[in-house]
């Protein structure tokens, strides 16, 4: 068996933008808006000595002046109930290729509180071992960034979606947020990288300042901040003004296997009947490239040094006019392997040296992960010296 070398580059599979056209979920009932003044005034009617008296209205401190509007409403101001949800969009992993840049996962941040808020956003890799979409995290992505879907179209656009924090989000409103990352060149087929988006509630229109829950005695003049959020992904505690959710990148790559077999075609004594491998016999090499990965391989170049003690034999195929036969799922093609620095006749194969055969991507085509194009067979013949 002779050494073979294969070079390939990965096909950039179409990036799946998950849930990009799904409508925002229906608004949540978040209740009475913060800073609303709730007013209450009772009225009493009564008689004294059998004579009906003018009704009296209540006041916070007690009113005994009869008559309409003589009382004062007892009031309180509705406080700021901080609540949010962060949800993964699309309910499936984003399929990526090794070395792919700016791969996107999509989240929805929804303000379920009763006042407009800002949010700080952070993206992070999830520790290995976490399961999502029935896949277990076993790798990380690099260069994690987070961007807000500025034009609310659900699609990450580098030129448009540049904000890295949510400046203001009204009660009941939601906005999509993207995690954008790069896949390491070392990523391999069927690796999974979970990522987590965390949103932290900040002062409305001032995302740099995180909101803090009010503590201590009530101040009658201010709207208190009450964190009401529940727990979420990654052990995010309840009532901390934060929410988180996980999404996943699924790495799909081509995995090529190369098999080389040989068969004696004819020998000078027996011809084609039970030929033996003796000097001047003709031997055919069959190199089969198969893709057992998950992504198509394109740009596959096959280099095969002609074994020592043999000589490349020309004009063995296609009516004794061609040197190499390439069989793919779409059919069989032939080429002439001229000795040249480049493929001077432009037919897809040549010999950089007399003893090296090179078959170019133009003949091999894309090696698919399944189906008829998942194997490519290259045949050529030599004579034994």
């Amino acid at each position, binding site marked *: 068996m002779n050494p073979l070398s294969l070079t390939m580059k990965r096909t950039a599979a179409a990036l799946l933008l998950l849930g990009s056209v799904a409508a925002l979920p229906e608004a949540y009932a*978040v209740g009475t808006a913060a800073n609303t003044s709730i007013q209450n005034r009772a009225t009493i009617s009564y*008689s004294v000595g059998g004579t009906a008296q003018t009704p009296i209205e209540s006041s*916070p401190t007690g009113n005994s002046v009869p008559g309409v509007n003589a009382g004062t409403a007892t009031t309180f101001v509705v406080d700021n109930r901080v609540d949010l949800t962060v949800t993964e969009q699309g309910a499936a992993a984003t399929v990526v290729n090794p070395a792919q840049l700016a791969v996107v996962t999509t989240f929805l941040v929804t303000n379920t509180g009763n006042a407009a808020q800002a949010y700080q956003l952070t993206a992070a890799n999830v520790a290995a071992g976490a399961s999502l979409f029935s896949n277990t995290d076993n790798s990380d992505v690099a260069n994690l960034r987070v961007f807000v879907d500025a034009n609310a179209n659900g699609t990450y656009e580098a030129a448009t979606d540049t904000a890295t924090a949510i400046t203001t989000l009204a009660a009941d409103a939601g906005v999509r947020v993207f995690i954008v990352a790069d896949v390491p060149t070392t990523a391999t087929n069927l690796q999974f990288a979970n990522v987590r988006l965390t949103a932290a509630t900040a002062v409305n229109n001032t995302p740099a300042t995180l909101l803090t829950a009010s503590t201590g005695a009530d101040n009658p003049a201010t709207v208190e901040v009450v964190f009401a959020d529940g727990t979420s992904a990654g052990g995010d505690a309840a009532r901390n003004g934060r929410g988180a959710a996980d999404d996943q990148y699924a790495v799909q790559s081509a995995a090529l296997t190369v098999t080389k077999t040989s068969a004696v075609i004819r020998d000078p004594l027996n011809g084609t009947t039970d030929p033996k491998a003796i000097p001047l016999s003709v031997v055919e090499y069959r190199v089969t490239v198969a893709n057992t990965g998950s992504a198509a391989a394109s740009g596959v170049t096959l280099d095969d040094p002609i074994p020592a003690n043999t000589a490349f034999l020309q004009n063995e195929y296609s009516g004794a006019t061609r040197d190499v036969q390439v069989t793919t799922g779409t059919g069989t093609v032939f080429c002439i392997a001229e000795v040249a620095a480049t493929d001077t006749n432009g037919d897809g194969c040549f010999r950089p040296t007399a003893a090296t055969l090179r078959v170019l991507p133009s003949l091999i085509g894309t090696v698919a992960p399944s189906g008829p194009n998942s194997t490519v067979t290259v045949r050529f013949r030599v004579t034994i010296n």
Partner: protein
Amino acid sequence: MKTVDPARLALSCLALLSAGAWAADADARRGCIELKTVAETEVETVDAQGQRSLKLVPAATVVPGSQVVWTVTAANVCDKPADKVVIDNPIPAQMSFVPDSAVGAGADILFSTDGRQFAGPAALVVRDATGAVRPARAADYTHIRWSLRNPIAPGQVAMARYRAELK
């Protein structure tokens, strides 16, 4: 949040007491009842022995879903009993009545879904969006009425209380 200042409240009570009891018609500017509405919330406190107890404090932190205890007190500040006492309280529009939370010693408690027709819970009905009539639920109540069976004697205080949840 606006709350009742207990100190001021005590002072105003003292002032009323020191002014003495009014005759029913002695002061045209004053009635015989002093009516007060207080908003409070319930907080759990733990004492030194670790005993937990619920305590009413002036409504401090109220967010959607919070319950507020509304307390209406009617003090007879005259020297004659007040009878046929009826206390009406519209439930704030942003709040919904908590079922079975209305109390009032010696009072018949009635409810209304429109502020005009008052009845006991079993007799109240509302029309839903399709025009069908169904029994009223606590959340449908808009008004509460306490009809006191007994007079409020001079110097006595009647109390009416209910709980409502902020929508």
